[in-house]
């Protein structure tokens, strides 16, 4: 029975936090992808599979040793105080802005009045209790979605906006009593307790009847900006929200940056475990995740693997590392630099909060990539409307090292294109990206996109930095004809087997080139992005005939692309896809590391 009770506590905590705390999972919550079999087993408790347990729940085992203690979970809304106005936000520094914490829900899970009875080991009784607890947890799961707080949780989880509020939680064995005014605004609901021979399990909630009294608005909604170098339509491009352009965010303002210790984790919410771990836990666990994000290649491992239906959490994770030190770029007075004045904790939690809101911006439902040129308006989900040319330049890698390295593996026929591309890429690395370039790129983007999404048009002779804009409505449709001199299309009809191996070679060489370019300085950012662009352009299986590479002209490329796309769809080996995925991962890691390096470099 004790095991049932403790698992019930864990499960209920999992359900509650899962439905209220946007930043619960520090890593990509890919379902059961990386969980061990033991995690799966624990997920099957009460026949309710919720996915991997967040790390926070591990604290519960450590903390909640006494099953008789009630588990009080406070869902706290961190929002602007009533005296701050939108106008004030523009002019007051973040350090003086008051953020207020309000408990909007208090969940109580309590194993009451436990007593020893002679039939403690009655298995049929346990089965009945277990069945009732299953039903209770189903109701809890549904109820979480019916209460008002769920809507704002969904708002925070949405990929398109950042908001001037955040949700944190606190788990304790007691709850501070509410004031009269607070009580007047709240309502109670108690689930029917489940009677056990040794006690009874009760779940109840006190919640705010309405959250409309709080000024919960999108963070950027008050600050319209004119994007002078807007390229492409965000709604049609899957490649978004790539966190590499950390300095982009930096340009706007980052009052959090200076105050924030680098060891704070963007993912660790201030777990207010009242056994003494109140806000202490995040510090203890702070540094590994952050540096992990910055340095290790593994966290963004799924980045390149999923362009289209990209999981929100992955992009969120990838973004947050870069963003956590920085306010959302289009929020000049970031609301998430919470002062946490009532709290004894120092700045990191505030920055964590800020990070979490800022990373909402990066939560793209479609793509992890934020090719920084595609800037957004205040409400857009792109990372920065404040991209200035110097910033953008950093985001394009100098392609020359990559090109030179890849030359040996290129085919003969596209050799002309190869040299053409090389010079073009070099020029792109050196140029500032002006508005005209972006518009041209955008225009060519559209042309390319019309042609089943291929970007061969981008390769036209302008040699402009818009190569960096190679976004497409479909990952598979990105193609750069001139790049095929360096990477043969893995899906060539003419030579499927050899193209697969060649693609592998290309991917390997790309990977090695990426790794070596990781050691470069500011220009390496451009190199990394250029490499990524190359990869993206070569990935899609549109071209069958390598001879179509021979002409650099837009029309020919488009035509070839059309004919290629019609006969394109060859069976592709899983190994090819895996290789491609790996290469994307490498690229993403490289870009992330670059952005981290550049960010630290700029900070210095």
């Amino acid at each position, binding site marked *: 029975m004790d095991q049932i009770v403790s698992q019930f506590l864990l499960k209920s905590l999992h359900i509650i936090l899962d439905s209220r705390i946007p930043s619960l999972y520090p890593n990509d919550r890919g379902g059961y992808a990386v969980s061990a079999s033991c995690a799966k087993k624990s997920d*099957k408790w009460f*026949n*309710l*599979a*919720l996915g991997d347990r967040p790390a926070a729940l591990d604290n519960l085992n450590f903390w909640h040793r006494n099953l008789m203690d009630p588990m009080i979970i406070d869902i706290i809304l961190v929002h602007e105080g009533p005296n701050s106005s939108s106008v004030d936000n523009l002019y007051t520094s973040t350090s003086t802005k008051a953020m207020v914490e309000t408990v909007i829900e208090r969940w109580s899970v309590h194993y009451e009045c436990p007593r020893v009875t002679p039939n403690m080991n009655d298995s049929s009784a346990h*089965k*009945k209790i277990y*069945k*009732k607890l*299953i*039903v*209770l947890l*189903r*109701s809890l*799961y*549904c*109820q979480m*979605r*019916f209460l008002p707080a*769920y*809507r704002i949780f*969904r708002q925070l989880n949405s990929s398109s906006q950042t908001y001037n509020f955040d949700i944190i939680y606190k788990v304790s064995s007691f709850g501070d009593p509410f004031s009269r005014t607070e009580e007047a605004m709240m309502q109670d609901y108690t*689930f*029917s307790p*489940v009677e056990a021979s040794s006690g009874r399990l009760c779940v109840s909630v006190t919640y705010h009847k309405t959250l409309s009294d709080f000024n919960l608005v999108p963070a950027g909604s008050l600050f319209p900006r004119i994007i002078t170098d807007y390229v492409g339509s965000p709604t049609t491009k899957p490649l978004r929200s790539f966190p590499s352009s950390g300095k982009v965010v930096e340009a706007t303002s980052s009052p959090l940056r200076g105050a924030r210790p680098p060891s704070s984790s963007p993912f660790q919410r201030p777990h207010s475990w009242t056994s003494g771990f109140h806000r202490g836990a995040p510090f203890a666990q702070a540094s590994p995740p952050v540096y992990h994000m910055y340095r290790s290649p593994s966290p963004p491992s799924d980045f390149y693997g999923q362009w289209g239906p990209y999981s929100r959490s992955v992009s969120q994770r990838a973004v947050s590392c870069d963003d956590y030190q920085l306010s959302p770029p289009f929020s000049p007075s970031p609301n998430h630099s919470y002062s946490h004045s009532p709290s004894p904790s120092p700045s990191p939690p505030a920055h964590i909060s800020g990070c979490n809101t800022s990373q909402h911006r990066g939560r793209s439902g479609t793509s992890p990539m934020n090719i920084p040129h595609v800037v957004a308006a205040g409400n857009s989900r792109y990372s920065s409307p404040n991209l200035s040319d110097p910033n953008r330049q950093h985001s394009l890698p100098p392609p020359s090292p990559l090109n030179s390295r890849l030359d040996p593996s290129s085919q003969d026929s596209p050799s002309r294109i190869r040299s053409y591309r090389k010079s073009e890429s070099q020029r792109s690395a050196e140029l500032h990206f002006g508005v005209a370039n972006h518009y041209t790129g955008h225009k060519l983007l559209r042309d390319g996109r019309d042609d089943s999404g291929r970007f061969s048009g981008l390769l036209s002779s302008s040699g402009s930095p818009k190569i960096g804009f190679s976004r497409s409505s479909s990952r598979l449709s990105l193609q750069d004809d001139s790049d095929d001199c360096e990477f043969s299309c893995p899906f060539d009809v003419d030579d499927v087997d050899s193209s697969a191996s060649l693609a592998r070679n290309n991917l390997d060489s790309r990977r090695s080139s990426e790794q070596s370019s990781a050691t470069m300085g500011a220009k390496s950012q451009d190199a990394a992005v250029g490499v990524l662009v190359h990869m993206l352009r070569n990935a899609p299986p549109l071209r069958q005939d390598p001879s179509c590479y021979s002409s650099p002209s837009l029309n020919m490329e488009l035509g070839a692309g059309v004919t290629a796309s019609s006969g394109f769809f060859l069976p592709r080996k899983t190994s090819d896809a895996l290789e491609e995925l790996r290469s994307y991962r490498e690229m993403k890691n490289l870009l992330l590391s670059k952005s981290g390096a550049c960010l630290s470099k700029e900070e210095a």
Partner: protein
Amino acid sequence: MNCEVCHLKDLEVEHYEIREVLRCILHTIIFHRALGLVRPKEIDLELFEITYVQCGDLKVEKKIDEKIEQLIGWVEKHPNKKSQICLSFYEVKNKQASWFTNKIERLYWEHWYVNLNVVQQPKTAYARSHSSKDIVDSENALEERSIRRACLETSLREVLFQIIRFVNDKKDHVPPIPNREGAISFPYEITIPSSSDSAFGMDMIKRMLQTGHPTMLS
């Protein structure tokens, strides 16, 4: 074992809202009764700011949609009539095999009645005339519709809370969970009682056929 019956609060819906409202209610009930291993699936309603949970079983989804379509067909044939859909859970009991039949009896242990009043929107709301009076009328109609929609959303929330309350208050009548794979642990059926008034004979024949087959689902 007793049979518990729950009559959910009446809902006034327009024709185009029937599908969403019924899906929400039926899936919520089944989610509470699908006590096998489930991976919950959240669905946002399009017409209302409500998120409900499905058990994730595609067969269930398909069956619910079929029954909803059946009800919609009935509603179209019987406008301005109260419609009702019944979700029942039962146990299958094997009776003693007799000389002629091997009867399998259904023991119902729970009935849920969803009551809908389908209102017909007055035609003036869709008037395309450009006269100022008609425009005002259609504006008023739109405003009435939005008020009605808000009321329906509130009522739907109350119905969902009603389901949760009922499910939690009454747990003793739920049979033991059988050892079966899949989310659905108890057989269920969805019927449209009002539609059987004119097809009593067919209903009886249907039941006789059903009791002859040890199928879990109708």
